[in-house]
């Protein structure tokens, strides 16, 4: 509660929170909010590429579908991808970071070197390759993104564990005979949680961008999915006439990622007041 109040005191972070909450509401109630919910699948070729008007505020696409409706309907997909990828990446990265941070010696070295190697591969190439090899589609794109994002969690948790391991309360817990597994799960993990949450929030923004890029390059979402990246890709053949076709889905990506990044920054300030001073 204190954290929330502190977060809301920063207008920029509050704006981020508002955007994310707005996106959540839109995602949950999409079928009721969209003016033409059936446009997720139905096409009306007769009204194709209409410019924005009162009837179609964002215009229509090449198949005559209302772009506003499709942007609204695409929100759910974007958030589902972001949450599941980040969750899966955390499930791989957090345990690795905990173990590598706690143990000394070869196991720790090995885990962190593997993490470094993963970090050295350009994510987009790795994700592209994995999703193509596993048969392109949204599901495999998500697996591929999770497999490329876990090292960021491993690094974050590793640093936190290293920091906490030498703290007095951990020494005390070890001295009263608490097994390492319990110290890690019941004491170190909760203390590392703020850093993990910040990483997850920023990771969601990053995932939405990368997933959209995969969709744009043709290895993510497939038609007629109202995916934002896919919409931008489809719009390329209709430029420069139909500027609205590429503009609005891209704006939706920008807004949601912006919200997540602002929220992530705000959360970081709350979690680590030391950084607050320099940020002003």
């Amino acid at each position, binding site marked *: 509660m204190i954290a929330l109040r502190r977060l809301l005191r920063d207008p920029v972070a509050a704006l981020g929170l508002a955007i994310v909450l707005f996106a959540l509401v839109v995602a949950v109630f999409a079928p009721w909010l969209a003016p033409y919910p059936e446009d997720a699948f139905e096409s009306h070729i007769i009204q194709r590429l209409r410019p924005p008007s009162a009837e179609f505020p964002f215009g229509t696409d090449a198949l005559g579908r209302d772009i506003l409706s499709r942007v609204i309907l695409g929100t759910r997909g974007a958030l589902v991808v972001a949450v599941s990828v980040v969750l899966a990446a955390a499930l791989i990265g957090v345990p690795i970071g905990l173990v590598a941070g706690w143990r000394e010696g070869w196991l720790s070295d090995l885990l962190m070197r593997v993490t470094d190697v*993963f970090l*050295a*591969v350009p994510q987009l190439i790795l994700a592209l390759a994995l999703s*193509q*090899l596993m048969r392109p589609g949204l599901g495999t794109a998500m697996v591929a993104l999770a497999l490329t994002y876990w090292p960021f969690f491993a690094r974050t948790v590793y640093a936190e564990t290293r920091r906490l391991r030498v703290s007095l309360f951990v020494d005390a817990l070890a001295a009263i005979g608490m097994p390492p597994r319990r110290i890690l799960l019941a004491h170190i993990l909760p203390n590392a949680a703020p850093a993990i949450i910040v990483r997850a929030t920023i990771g969601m923004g990053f995932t939405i961008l990368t997933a959209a890029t995969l969709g*744009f390059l043709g290895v993510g979402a497939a038609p007629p999915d109202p995916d934002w990246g896919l919409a931008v890709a489809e719009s*390329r053949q209709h430029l420069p006439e139909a500027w609205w076709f590429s503009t609005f889905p891209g704006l939706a*990506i920008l807004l949601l990622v912006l919200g997540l990044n602002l929220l992530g920054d705000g959360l970081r300030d709350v979690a680590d007041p030391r950084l607050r001073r320099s940020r002003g």
Partner: protein
Amino acid sequence: MAAYVLRRILLALPALFGLVVLSFVLVRIVPGDPAATLAGDAATPQQVEEIRARYGLDRPLAEQLLVHLRQVMTGDFGRSVFSDRPVAEEIGQRLPATLELTFCALAMATVFGVGLGLAAALDHNGPVDHLVRLLSVAGLAVASFWLAILLQLLFAMDLDLLPLRGRIDVELGPPAERTGFFLVDALLEGRRDRFVDALRHLVLPAVTLALPGLATIARFTRSGVLETLQKDFVLYARAAGYGRFRLAAIYVLRNAVTATVTQVGLLFGALISGAVAVEAIFDWPGIGTYAVRAILSADYKALLAVTLVVGVVYAVVNVLVDVAQGLIDPRVADTSE
């Protein structure tokens, strides 16, 4: 200093070895049969077996890995199954295009990023500061493929100021190849028209690619400068009567940019990733478009080579960054044992 540089290089080698093994294992253990993909949908089982034997895919995985490692050591990346030309040759032709693009983007991101970050810090909580903050969050949130399309729409299609795609005008033709960097080659042969044309082609892709990096660098420079401004030596220099600008440009910036320099190195990986999408949109004949083609045509030899080359470039850049850091801040080179 020499020992420090050598140490950095030696540290990078195991990571590269790991990268070769990892990319090989990843490409080979994920579900899917490369031989079947290569043979195509219409292939008979015999044809698939033939391909499997030809590419050595019927051997045990460990043996394949050893063969692969031996080939990589000798710079032999095999032949592309797509074009049947040596992969090393194809990459050699395309790498300069990507490097020219990424270096220009990196230079742009560094110059403007450091400048904006410094300006923001000196105007702490003022209008410039807020503007830079807004720009830097937006820069990290924008999808580069979308930004590229909007820039094309505005500057190439509507205003007709800059070329839409490609590296150089087709009628003008590329400059005689010496370095593969069109800007350098055009200067070497003294062709002003080609230089200007290559530069005009470079603007939109480089700006697209630079924006996220610029945002990151501006952020790190800003917080670095703000932190340094609170140090005692700054107070002392101010008391001694140093001008605000001189103090900021020489003493504060030098102390503040070490974190920024590390970021520049890390950014390079992001830039190469970004180049994949940017090159696809601007028809830039570089490694990014090559990687996408290799992936879509299941050209796994080409894919492994691209991954390794990118890894090597990344490692080299990061060694250079470490060296630069040692030069800016001698303490870095000293304390690393």
